[in-house]
């Protein structure tokens, strides 16, 4: 399985730079997920790796070969698309066989490979059907089969699960994870769904406006976000970002309380706290208080959306079904373990210790 290496890759649409110099190495057998908001360039970057978009500057290497100028079929990549992109007038068999025939494989070899792949994906009974006679999940499995059958160096997935319903998405997600293990294949997966990113990825690449914001394992990206963008983007519900100042005795929230662990000279900072790092407490020991504006009862957990007195908002994730009503006064306490601190430039600062010193 091949390694993918991007060096200073840039892409322009007219005068607009959509990919702004990306350096990335995807190790052999690794599953890397590109995640980011709409229009951040994740699909464009994937298409550049596939050879479907020109690379204006920089270099793309696959399996140690420079493929920057190579046509898509000669890069050793296979791609699975969001809308399946199966040839509608061909049967599943012909869809799988098309690329092999183009590659000049003999009829017997084509048949053997198609049958093997169909067996692996349990689509043997679909081979005579045309795409319109298949369900969404079946079509996506055939589309994955079309990628597998070519035995590529790298698999590219462009939001392949977006068109599926929730239950099917979970099933297909686990199937892709299983395939990744069985084939030990290098895979690059584009999604805007964080759950997909967190569950599938060996490493996540967070993209924003054509730049890489952070590269790391799901745990790193979640627990140690590199900047405010990653902090706000990764995690659902999103991390609470509270304005604060960094004084000599610790992080002082706008509302008053001072939380220890770091010292500074009064510069403006942002304290990032995951919603599950907040607990309900008494008014006396609370760091923050607010009025419940929205309560989401999800069965095994409850999500509270509070309006703070200073006009800010706070989200709290509580285990279990918490009996609260809208309009209730809620007092919360911050657990500084796992909290993040961001400087005025939006970059993460190291937060030492997690002890609290009440003002």
């Amino acid at each position, binding site marked *: 399985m091949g390694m993918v290496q991007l060096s200073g890759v840039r892409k322009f649409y007219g005068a607009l730079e959509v990919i702004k110099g990306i350096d990335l190495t995807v190790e052999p057998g690794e599953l890397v997920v590109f995640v980011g908001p709409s229009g951040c360039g994740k699909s464009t970057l994937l298409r550049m790796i596939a050879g479907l978009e020109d690379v204006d500057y920089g270099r793309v290497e696959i399996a140690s070969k420079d493929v920057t100028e190579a046509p898509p079929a000669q890069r050793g990549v296979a791609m699975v698309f969001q809308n399946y*992109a199966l040839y509608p007038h061909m049967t599943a068999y012909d869809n799988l066989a098309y*690329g092999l025939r183009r590659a000049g494989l003999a009829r017997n070899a084509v048949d053997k490979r198609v049958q093997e792949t169909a067996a692996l994906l349990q689509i043997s009974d679909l081979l005579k059907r045309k795409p319109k006679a298949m369900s969404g999940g079946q079509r996506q499995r055939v589309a994955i089969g079309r990628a597998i059958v070519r035995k590529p160096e790298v698999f590219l997935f462009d939001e392949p699960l977006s068109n599926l319903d929730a239950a099917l998405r979970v099933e297909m997600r686990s199937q892709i994870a299983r395939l990744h293990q069985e084939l030990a294949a290098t895979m690059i997966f584009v999604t805007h769904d964080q759950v997909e990113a967190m569950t599938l990825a060996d490493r996540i690449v967070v993209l924003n406006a054509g730049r890489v914001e952070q590269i790391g394992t799901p745990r790193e990206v979640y627990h140690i976000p590199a900047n405010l963008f990653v902090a706000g983007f990764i995690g659902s519900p999103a991390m609470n970002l509270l304005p604060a100042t960094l004084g000599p005795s610790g992080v002082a929230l706008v509302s008053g309380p001072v939380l220890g662990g770091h010292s500074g000279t009064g510069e403006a900072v942002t304290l990032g706290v995951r919603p599950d790092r907040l607990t309900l407490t008494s008014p006396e020991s609370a760091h923050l208080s607010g009025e419940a504006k929205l309560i989401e009862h999800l069965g095994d957990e409850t999500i509270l959306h509070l309006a703070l007195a200073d006009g800010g908002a706070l989200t709290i994730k509580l285990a279990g079904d918490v009996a609260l009503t809208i309009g209730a006064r809620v007092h919360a306490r911050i657990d500084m373990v796992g909290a993040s601190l961001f400087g005025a430039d939006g970059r993460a600062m190291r937060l030492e210790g997690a002890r609290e010193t009440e003002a």
Partner: protein
Amino acid sequence: MSRQRKATPSARIGMLTYHALMLAISAVFLLPFYWMTISAFKTNAEIFSNPVTWLPDPIRWENMTSLLTREDFPFVQQFVNSVFYAGTVAVLVCLSCSLAAYSFGCLRWRGRNLVFGLTVCALLMPTIVTFLPIYLAWSKIGLTGTYWPLITPFLFGDAFFIFMLRQFFMGVPRELLDAARLDGASEFRIWWQIVMPQLRTPLIIVGLFATVYTWNEFFLPLIYLQDREAFPLSVGLFTFQSQRAVEWSVSMMGAFLTALPMVALFLLTQRLFQRGLSSTGLK
């Protein structure tokens, strides 16, 4: 229990007025065709009889025999010419215009919109403006009097049909083309094996338009062809009428038999026509 909804009197009057108007407009278009049809089965005297007879009695089938056996009007030969001319143009238009439409609709290249704009500008150029230099060119090559000048231009597409097909080609999902590129297909192969099968309906519609247009084409065959045996029906019928003005019944039979294939074609493909025009033909 279902209750039938009753139309209000004003709605009923509105519907009646609408249908009456539609019938009147239809009559304007259908009456000449009906007149031609009944005249084809009458004698000359019956055509001009007063009062007018709206049905031929008896039906003069001999007009057909007379038409098909005349030496001064090689109807069968001209019919074959028309089928050849219209059929060849339809096939060439489908192939050449779809290739151009694939390029304009499915490929990205610098200056694409400018070239497409220039192509569409060709629609604004009347044939009469360009025919003289083109005629002289064909004349120099020595190919006037043959179908080459009439058919060859369609090897290079036709602005109207390129414009029409481009809309359909733009509707082909980009991912389908990308998937084929990743599968190692050349652009030519993608056009032929992937895109063309998706666009059967639009291609049939373009083929039909081209057939009808060429079947009725009069001006160019008239200036390029000199031999009666080589004429298509449009020119053949005109020549016969201008030379044998008094033989209305045979003329009408000729006109009837000339129009008949196009009417039949339209009736057979009417639903396809409507479906193709109302949708892109893509799911």
